[in-house]
């Protein structure tokens, strides 16, 4: 027993070495800030004349691409145009089918075929839900879509759904093919991994800019952005799923004499199916996450409604459309998850030899949908949910906001101002005023301690880019907002996680809430925040904390639960109290895992920060945001890269700390 506790205690003592280090770094930074007047000018504020004109270079390169680049047979522009044409055509078809109907001819002779009936679509989706899961999901799906109809969100939702229906298959297929290539060839994987890393850390807005530039404003550009945003996890999950196929099955495929192609499509892909379906679910979720953002470059539908409402500060409208997106997201998430987790077919489930008997449900659904189109042409209420039956709570919410403004405005303002003046602004001042060589030095030293010279060079190189492009001050504002939000998120999330591990009921409930919160598109978090706190740094921070809280809680729960039971029992046998067990055994052992949660929190905070530019922050997010408004590719990409580099620096440092610590504790 004593040996077991020694095992826990020893690394604790050794890691104390890092406490003096961080203390020294903090003191150094404090001193440097306090006495920055004595430092040379260039160390405090990076001189303008030392900058490189990277932004115009990128912008010029993009212009060249559009105007002059050619692949020999066709120009780059022809290439982008044909892609745009293809997607545009598909999108039109989907819109027609789901939202707008088709009109042939003009004027008097115009002949209109209505879109699929709302009622028929609900019935088909409910049938599908029953098939893949059961009655509960079917009821839930019915409720979600009835909400869309009753609250007058139907036609917007169908526009959104149409673009998802087109973009998801392409995203999945592209991700699958790239994933297969990466699985087959080591060099493809090596080439693709940094690209994927970057794509996951660059804020979405940043690549909206070049897409806007290449494809112009409109639903097609929005859809392409969505696909680019949603496909990377599919690539990763494809590689993982294929790797995870048991070695024996791979060998069997070869022993059976499969050709390369047969091996991939008849053995590997089916055997990896459940992993691939997780990828599908991810693509669906990320596509829905993009709905509002994509509306900034021309997507219509629910996303546009939310954005439009937010810009006019029409909270009620925004809320209703936001809830519609959320319900759509949760509905599609549950459906695709249920499809992924559906137990494989059981014997006898494919009874009936005829095609008709085997695909009865598909036939019924097809007939229903087609029939509803005919019926819709005769009875308009079948096609479109009648306007007069809709409800709206918009007025109500506007009144709530009014009431809040009248009654709580003063209190909120006092709290807000106090926090701003006494906490936020001083920290902001500190970050902005901190001489850049000091910060870079501390980061490089930390990198060196954690991972050797490579990890020391990383913050230096990435920091140099930020400096050279003249984004240091904005980057520091980003770091301040992000840092503060993460600290608050950690201080709320970790205790919440600890509380949740108290009983398995609590754990289940907490995880369920978190899962739901994570399906909300990031924009939705802005709505209540604007409602309560209007605009500014403070609102931004609250929205970021709310959005980024989930991983802190989740990883705390996971970290605490994975502490080996025998260590806890050893502690109990030695008479530790519950509190001692928590703080002396569970927490130290869970800490590496919790730090990974904090890492995730940082990543999510950074992605949210860019969105909060909408409420008027002055950081890198704003930089990206204005670049989008001006369609300035250079500025957008550079600012986006700066955000990504902050993320990458934090990620690499924390990851290697966590790895090291896990190895020390032997809980790898």
């Amino acid at each position, binding site marked *: 027993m004593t040996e077991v506790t020694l095992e826990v205690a020893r690394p604790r003592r050794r890691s104390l070495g890092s406490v003096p280090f961080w203390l020294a770094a903090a003191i150094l930074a404090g001193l440097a800030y306090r006495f920055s007047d004595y430092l040379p000018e260039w160390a405090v504020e990076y001189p303008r004349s030392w900058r490189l004109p990277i932004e115009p270079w990128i912008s010029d390169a993009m212009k060249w691409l559009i105007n002059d680049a050619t692949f020999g047979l066709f120009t780059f522009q022809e290439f982008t145009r044909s892609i745009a044409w293809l997607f545009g055509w598909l999108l039109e078809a989907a819109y027609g089918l789901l939202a707008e109907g088709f009109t042939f001819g003009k004027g008097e002779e115009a002949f209109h075929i209505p879109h699929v009936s709302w009622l028929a679509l609900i019935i088909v989706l409910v049938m599908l839900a029953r098939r893949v899961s059961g009655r509960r999901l079917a009821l839930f799906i019915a409720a979600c879509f009835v909400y869309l109809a009753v609250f007058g969100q139907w036609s917007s939702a169908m526009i959104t759904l149409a673009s998802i229906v087109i973009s998801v298959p392409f995203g999945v297929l592209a991700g699958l093919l790239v994933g297969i290539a990466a699985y087959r060839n080591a060099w493809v994987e090596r080439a693709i991994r940094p690209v994927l890393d970057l794509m996951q850390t660059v804020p979405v807005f940043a690549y909206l800019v070049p897409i806007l530039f290449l494809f112009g404003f409109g639903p097609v550009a929005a859809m392409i952005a969505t696909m680019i945003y949603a496909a990377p996890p599919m690539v990763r999950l494809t590689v993982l799923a294929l790797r995870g196929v*048991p070695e024996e099955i791979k060998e*069997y495929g070869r022993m059976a004499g*499969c050709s390369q192609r047969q091996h991939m499509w008849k053995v590997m892909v*089916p*055997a990896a199916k459940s992993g691939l379906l997780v990828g599908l679910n991810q693509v669906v979720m990320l596509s829905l996450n993009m709905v509002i953002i994509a509306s900034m470059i021309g997507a219509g539908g629910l996303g546009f409604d939310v954005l439009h409402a937010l810009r006019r500060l029409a909270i009620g409208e925004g809320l209703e459309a936001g809830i519609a997106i959320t319900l759509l997201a949760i509905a599609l998430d549950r459906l695709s998850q249920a499809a992924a987790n559906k137990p*494989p*077919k059981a014997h006898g489930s494919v009874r009936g030899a005829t095609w008709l008997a085997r695909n009865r449900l598909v036939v019924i659904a097809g007939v229903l949908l087609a029939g509803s189109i005919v019926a819709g042409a005769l009875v308009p209420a079948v096609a479109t949910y009648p306007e007069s039956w809709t409800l709206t709570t918009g007025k109500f919410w506007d009144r709530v906001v009014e009431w809040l403004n009248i009654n709580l405005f003063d209190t909120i303002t006092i709290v807000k101002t106090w926090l701003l003046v006494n906490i936020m602004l001083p920290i902001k001042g500190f970050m902005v005023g901190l001489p850049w060589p000091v910060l870079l030095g501390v980061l490089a030293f930390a990198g060196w301690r954690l991972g050797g010279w490579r990890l020391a060079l990383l913050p230096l190189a990435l920091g140099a880019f930020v400096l050279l492009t003249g984004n240091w001050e904005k980057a520091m504002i980003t770091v301040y907002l992000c840092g503060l939000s993460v600290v608050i998120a950690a201080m709320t999330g970790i205790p919440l996680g600890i509380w949740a591990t108290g009983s398995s009921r609590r754990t289940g409930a907490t995880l369920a809430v978190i899962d739901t919160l994570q399906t909300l598109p990031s924009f939705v978090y802005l709505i209540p925040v604007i409602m309560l706190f209007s605009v500014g740094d403070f609102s931004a921070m609250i929205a970021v904390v709310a959005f980024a809280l989930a991983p802190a809680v989740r990883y705390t729960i996971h970290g605490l639960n994975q502490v080996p039971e025998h260590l806890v029992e050893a502690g109990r046998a030695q008479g530790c109290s519950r509190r001692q067990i928590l703080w002396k055994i569970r927490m130290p052992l869970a800490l590496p895992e919790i730090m990974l949660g904090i890492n995730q929190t940082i990543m999510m905070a950074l992605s949210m920060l860019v969105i909060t530019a909408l409420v008027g922050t002055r950081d890198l997010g704003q930089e990206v945001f204005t670049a989008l408004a001006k369609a300035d590719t250079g500025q957008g990409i550079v600012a986006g890269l700066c955000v990504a580099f902050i993320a990458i620096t934090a990620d690499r440092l924390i990851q290697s700390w966590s790895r090291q610590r896990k190895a020390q504790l032997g809980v790898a």
Partner: protein
Amino acid sequence: MTVKSGTIKLGCRGVWKLFGDHAERLLATAGGAPDDEALRQAGVIGAVRDVSLEVHEGEIFIIMGLSGSGKSTLVRCLSRLIEPTAGEVLFEGQDLLQANERELMDIRRHKMGMVFQHFALLPHLSVLGNVAFPLEIQGVDRTTREARANEMIELVGLKGREDYYPRELSGGQQQRVGIARSLAVGPDIWFLDEPFSALDPLIRREMQDEFLRLQSVLKKTIVFITHDFDEVIRLADRIAIMQDGAIIQTGTPEEVVTRPATSYVAEFTRDVPRAKVVSAGVLARPGQAGSVRVPASARVGDVAARVFDEEQPIGVDGADGTPLGVLHRQDVLDILLGREPRQ
């Protein structure tokens, strides 16, 4: 059972498989035979080391050894699922390692079958689909391949479960599917890598009987891996014992048990009941027998009861029917008690 001197179906000479970086170069610099020390220093694992063996047509050749001794790796070299670092593999007289992608595919499609320890069934296909799969790969049309698959399913006693999915079957049933599937193409050589190890003892025994029944009908050439000597006794015509990647003895189970080549083999076979491997022919001494006679290949354990029950000494007949002598009670007792037989 005596060594069958039939034609050689599968053989290999000087096969090496080293795992690690620069394995080829290490092999070249060490003159083709690096010792333990050289391997360790280079950080290379010698999974198969200088193995040569011959498998005759129609025999059950068992490779046995402790976990990690290189059995699976050797069999995968023989079927070229992994590329040996050095050596040659002769299948029906042709060097398998020289075969190109296309030829190899053809050989595997028509002449080789393999059964895996963890069954390796395709989870998305029914029993019928799994058994028909190798034929589907060859492009055999649906009715033909399903007819053939049904035949195989009946052969392994799974009739009635054609549309079950692998996860709906017990371990033993899954392995029957694995066996049916590997037989569907009518292979000339049949590899089985610990096919029954994942099954519990009762099912394992049942599957062994099943396997013997199949073999009595099919007469395949079989390379079989196990680490269980009971299995060897029940199934093997000849065995090869592996230790640290090398084959240290090849022979009939009886030879290996009664004349171990090294102290490792002796230790390895120490607990094997002698009565189950030693044959009556070995114990035959000159003398006058009564009316009761047993064949020379009969195991001592199987005839012991009669030796003690009969008044008259029991006679032993050779394979061609010539009398070889009689069994003495003392000799049989020695074997039963596990003592060394007297010469």
